[in-house]
């Protein structure tokens, strides 16, 4: 979270040059893209589907709206949004990583989802969209990997329509100590081993566990959202705070 003045930032528990982080994160996702979905199911024991379902319930999205699914990865949310907004609506799946974007595009096309979905490779810090363009922006498990989070939030705020909302689904700080103990054990001991076993890549999952610890907690993120101009900001703890959904409005 705390970025030092000499242009360094964290990459998991390591400290790296700011311009290196993008590459390092990209390497992580290049290596996990192919097995991303199956790993999600295994590592979260399928619970990520419920978190995403809750996100959609909170989105208030309707037919004909414009939705941006930032860091959309393999397009779980995009698929749902595409069906909800219908033919008159529009969904943009954006990800900084082209491997993930390709996996997502192939998956969605195989599902028969096309026509109202477009794919954009974009950096969340500098979104290539006009001001006041989207009714809803979601960023699910992506903000953690962004180098400059304040800049990304400000950029999101700019492209959001007045009356639109931002949903940030991200790992957070568990609210109960026993849960936290178990969660720490799980993510530092079991998670990398599972990653090794299934995707043959323990470093990426070590990074996942570390980056979660470095991510701001519920109240800090809420404060960050308020700072760039979001109003009515609130958060919902899911699964005892392992994941939190932040919601903010632009008025």
């Amino acid at each position, binding site marked *: 979270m705390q970025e030092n003045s000499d242009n360094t930032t964290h990459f998991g528990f390591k400290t790296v040059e700011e311009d290196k982080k993008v590459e390092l994160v990209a390497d992580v996702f290049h290596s996990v893209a192919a097995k991303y979905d199956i790993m999600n199911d295994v590592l979260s024991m399928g619970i990520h589907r419920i978190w995403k*379902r809750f996100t959609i319930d*909170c989105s208030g999205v*309707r037919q004909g709206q414009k939705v941006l699914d930032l860091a959309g990865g393999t397009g779980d949310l995009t698929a749902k949004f595409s*069906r909800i907004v*219908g033919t008159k609506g529009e969904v943009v799946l954006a990800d900084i990583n082209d491997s993930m974007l390709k996996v997502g595009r192939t998956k969605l096309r195989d*599902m*028969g*989802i096309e026509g109202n979905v477009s794919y954009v490779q974009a950096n969340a810090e500098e979104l290539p969209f006009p001001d006041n363009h989207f009714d809803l922006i979601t960023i699910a498990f992506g903000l953690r990997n962004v180098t400059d989070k304040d800049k990304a939030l400000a950029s999101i705020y700019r492209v959001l329509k007045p009356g639109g909302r931002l949903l940030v689904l991200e790992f957070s700080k568990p609210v109960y100590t026993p849960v936290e103990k178990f969660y720490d054990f799980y993510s530092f001991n079991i998670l990398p081993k599972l990653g090794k076993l299934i995707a043959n890549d323990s470093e990426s999952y070590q990074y996942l566990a570390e980056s979660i610890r470095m991510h701001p907690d519920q109240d800090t993120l809420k404060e960050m959202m308020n700072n760039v101009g979001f109003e009515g900001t609130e958060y919902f703890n899911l*699964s005892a705070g392992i994941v939190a959904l932040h919601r903010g409005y632009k008025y």
Partner: protein
Amino acid sequence: MSLTNLLCGLLETSVNQLHQLDSSAISKRKQLNGTIIAASLQEIDLPLYFIISEQQVDVLNQFEGQPDCTIKVSFQALNKLQDNRQLTQLIKSGELEVDGDIQLVQKFAMLLTDMQIDWEEHLSQKVGDVIAHKLCQHAKTAFQTTQFQYKRIETQSALYVTEEIKLAPSALEVAYFCDQVSSLATDADLLLNKINNKLDKQLNNLSQTKVLADKK
């Protein structure tokens, strides 16, 4: 919150999995493509929003837009929804409340309940034709035998109760008893009428004699 999400998820997955097996589901979904139906049971206040697209059915439990059709149905009326002729009756009896296009309700009910799944065909792809055929045949005969046995046990126990241990009367006995009761009722009515008539007459007589006595 997460429990209803779980419920929605399970419902959505099971409906879509069944639809995968049903070859007619695609055309049914095409007819309803893009419609959003809000459905809830009268007993539980938990609205579910069904978003139907060509690819699948999505179930949400919160939706801020305007659904094309809102249905509120009682639990018992669920399986009657399929039948076109019963819809108006259900609405009249208050078991079904519809806000919107009633034809959508019909199509929606068909989509969820009327699935033509050829289990034997799907099974044969997994275990081979012969085993699938045998299994399905056995399942069918087993089903028929249980139904037959159930009916037989029903009649036999009825006969045992009425004929062997005389615990309950048979149908004819009940009918005979009912006849007797009704004839007794009519007899009693007749008797009552007669008594009333007699009493009226006597009262009249009494009052006349009184009037005469007063005049004197």
